[in-house]
């Protein structure tokens, strides 16, 4: 039974598509992410820039809107990890939904949500 269990976990691991990391430039306090950065296989990607201390998770919702969340835990500023069900802090167990709202403590505050605009066939994340 334990061999079957481990095999199932390995299958799950290998079938998870890697998270796309988009390296964006900061211009006029915005990062521009083209629509084409999203593929038919992913509805979220990581936006990265060296000027930022933490990555941004950009999510394309079912209604076509976008949410940009800072991947920093509001408990003790540790980096968050994301999968298809939410954002998680491996350090102390906090979890957040895709609106940045706390689902599980010890974090008490929501994570930072950036305003986004649509302009020139791109998502503009306003820093």
């Amino acid at each position: 039974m334990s061999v079957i269990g481990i095999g199932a976990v390995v299958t799950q691991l290998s079938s998870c598509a890697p998270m796309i990391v988009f390296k964006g430039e900061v211009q006029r306090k915005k990062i521009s992410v083209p629509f084409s950065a999203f593929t038919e296989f992913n509805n979220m990607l990581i936006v990265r820039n060296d000027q930022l201390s933490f990555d941004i998770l950009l999510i394309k919702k079912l209604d076509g809107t976008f949410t940009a969340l800072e991947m920093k835990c509001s408990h003790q500023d540790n980096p968050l990890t994301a999968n298809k069900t939410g954002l998680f802090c491996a350090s102390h167990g906090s979890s957040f939904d895709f609106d940045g709202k706390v689902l599980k403590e010890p974090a008490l505050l929501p994570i930072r949500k950036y305003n986004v605009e649509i302009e020139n066939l791109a998502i503009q994340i306003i820093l």
Partner: protein
Amino acid sequence: MRYKLLFLGAFIGISSIKAQILTKEDSLAAGIISRNTATVISGYGSVKYKYDVNRKLAEANVDRVILFVGHKFNNKISFFSEIEVEDAKVAGGEAGGEIALEQAFIKFNLTKNAYLSAGLFIPRIGIINENHLPTTFNGNDRPFVERFIIPATWREIGLGLFGSTNKIPGLNYSIGLVNGLNSEEFQSGRGIRDGRYEGRDANASALAVTGSLLYYIKNFRIQASAYYGGSAGLSDLDSDTLKLSNGPFGTPVLFYEANVQYTNKGFSFKGLFTSVQIADAEKINNAYGNNIPETIMGYYAEVGFNLLSLSKKTEKNLTVFARYENLDMNNKLSPNGIVDKSKNSAYFVGGISFLPIKGVIVKADYVLQQTGAQNPNLLGTTDPNFKKEKGFFSLGVGYSF
């Protein structure tokens, strides 16, 4: 002169405002992305009333109050510390009470999703070791498997690398190199708990390595971790005299655990299994007169349901839970070990946890503890008042901010 004094006072005032301690709300709500320094204060604690159903006696205790102080030097380097007071008071000569550092380390952000901790830190082993705030677990007492087998809160001095990989979303890892244990202090029925140094005068001639993989997939949180370390940082002379192997990994302790958590729509499940292997238990017993087994095993499973999750109008949480724990402290004895089944325990824990707001919790639970019989051949360990079955009712409050 008066205007000079006013100007000086204003300058001091403004400087003081810039240097003031920021709460988490200040630093987050301000939407700051460029401020490089911040000092944060937070903490947690719990108090409980406990009634012994058999002895018909009660006690009340401030289990712990912890103060966290952290400082961000810049976007790459931070300092974290936690100081703990257990049992409210430490008075010279009196038993009980403890003031201790739980953490004191410098954190170096290496990449966007990896950081290095250097100092006194908590390795990723088990659930409670890192996730020990009272608002994050059910029951007034931390799970007994994670007190007496995984000796949470277990912290040592060393280096820890923590990170995640984007190649497999949800996968986190940790690797640690810390000082080892002190097998002279291992006690029967308490596993390796008393062999921890916890940052005080640690013998770093014995070393330990730890590692973990933690994976978030769908509604599951799955973790496996291991520890391998020496427990006899002795000189060559003492090693020969006591007949214990020394060196960084001499008289080794092997520790492993696996746990899984599942959360969905108010329902929660936790399961954990752990084992400690002390291959040289016989030699340790010969050297120090302990009664240490070669293998210790434990596991627990808990289910809970948040009754208020049925309502979408509240963020309050009222969870009813039930947990079963099994601690086999004599799983495999050494050739010179003496069985003491009174140290083996099964716990049935049931209760409720109520969070009226995030950060505050009220707990009520009943613990039924069942142990094995005492061994009359163990001199000095038999208690005429010993009972194989004990019941405790506890009521407590906890907080974290």
